[in-house]
């Protein structure tokens, strides 16, 4: 997700080509999608795990939505919109970091 955010900032400053950004953002979307699928496929062992799973899947789903939107914009050659759409990743990144910190071991 940080890679995608950095890529959108590069787009805003005109430092990267559309082709490069397309590859980077598509990879980020695929990685996020894979992570979401992995957690969705895990059978939660307890009610507490149910709740954690639900919280995490909501955040990952929102990440996936933003990354999909970024992919759509870059393929429409609308590079100017990437930074604005990509800013939606900032709060999600904070939420994920807090989630990991709160539930680490």
């Amino acid at each position, binding site marked *: 997700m940080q890679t995608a955010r*950095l890529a959108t900032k590069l787009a805003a400053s005109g430092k990267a080509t559309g*082709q*490069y950004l397309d*590859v*980077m953002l598509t*990879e980020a979307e695929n990685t996020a999608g894979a992570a979401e699928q992995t957690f969705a496929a895990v059978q939660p062992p307890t009610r507490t795990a149910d709740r954690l799973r639900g919280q995490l899947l909501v955040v990952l789903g929102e990440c996936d939505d933003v990354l999909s939107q970024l992919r759509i914009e870059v393929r429409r050659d609308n590079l100017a919109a990437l930074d604005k759409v990509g800013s939606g990743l900032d709060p999600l990144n904070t939420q994920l970091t807090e989630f990991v910190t709160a539930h680490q071991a």
Partner: protein
Amino acid sequence: MKKVFAITLGILTAIGGFVDIGDLVANALIGSRYAFALAWVVPIGVLGICLYAEMCGRVAAISGRPVFDVIRERLGPRLALANLAASLLVTGLTLAAEIGGVALAMELATSVNYLLWVPLVGVLVWIVIWRVKFQHMETAFGLLGLFLVVFAVAWWKLGPHWGNVLHQVTHPALPPNEGLPTYLYYAIALFGAAMTPYEVFFFSSGAVEEHWRRNDLTVMRANVFVGFPLGGLLSLAIMGTAALVLFPLGVQVDSLGQVALPVVVALGKIGLAVVLVGIFAATFGAALETGLSVGYTAAQFFGWQWGKLVRPLNAARFHVFTLISLLGGVLLIMTTLDPIKVTEYSIVFSAVALPLTYLPILIVANDKDYVGDRVNGRIANALGMIYLVIVVAASAAAIPLMIATKAGQ
């Protein structure tokens, strides 16, 4: 002019061989995950490859025969067969990774999926091996590979605090949340990437292709002691850019696009264009080297006619074997196996195979029947023995660490 061309061989093996897909991925990954905490491995790897490449070049220049051919004769077919099997496995895997690397570089330039590029890359590599003269091949890809110097420019442009960098290099410390086994696993991977077996076999076979003789020893040493350290400096620059841009963000490199990302941050679109040309040249050059190395080692073991200086009709088995290897590499990547994962495994398996490669070289370089009065001196033997201990330790620890850390996770 001839000497300039000869030195280019060293530059090619340094950049196309030392900096190949394995070094690009390993150095960027380690820089993004450990910053400079593993930078100390790079000079150790550089010194090791210089030491053994010099032995290989000397054996080839004095005896007029490639080192693998001599190993088979000196140590017998059984030990040479073990060497051949390990070399073919590791070099074949590396060849597949290089083909994937070229295709990924094309994808980054065009956004056309890399799988569509893979067959075309395979055909192009084969055409170059088949048609292009050895010297033209090394000159073209040697010079284009120098575009990777953009990593050093980007590192300087990013403006690191050099004192802080030096402190981190000389006082390596584990980042929080990182365990010692994973640290050691990546140290071995980086060492394996630096001392990849195909480099020395290609170097000595190339020396024979170029008809090096006793009076070329000075040029050969210039190649080794200039070319490989240049590759080592580029490796450090790749690590340095990742450490400055990706490490603070907590980004862990798992794609070739991320390897180039710090250069784009520092130098924008021009930097992107230059780094993509550099990555293309380094991986394409390494695909040629690994493809040829597979053919060289097999032909030298079985006693077939080999080499690019021989008409293909007269070295049919060498060319067919090389072509089959290329086809195997293309098919492996076409299975959609991630080329970056293939790269990571190839450098770890390189580390496993190191003793089988380097012990026979040390023995042959001390045999007066092949090198006459140019046998190893005391310093070369002392360093050679120290490196043998290191490669045996790395080889023994690689697989257990791979299992224990789930391949560095």
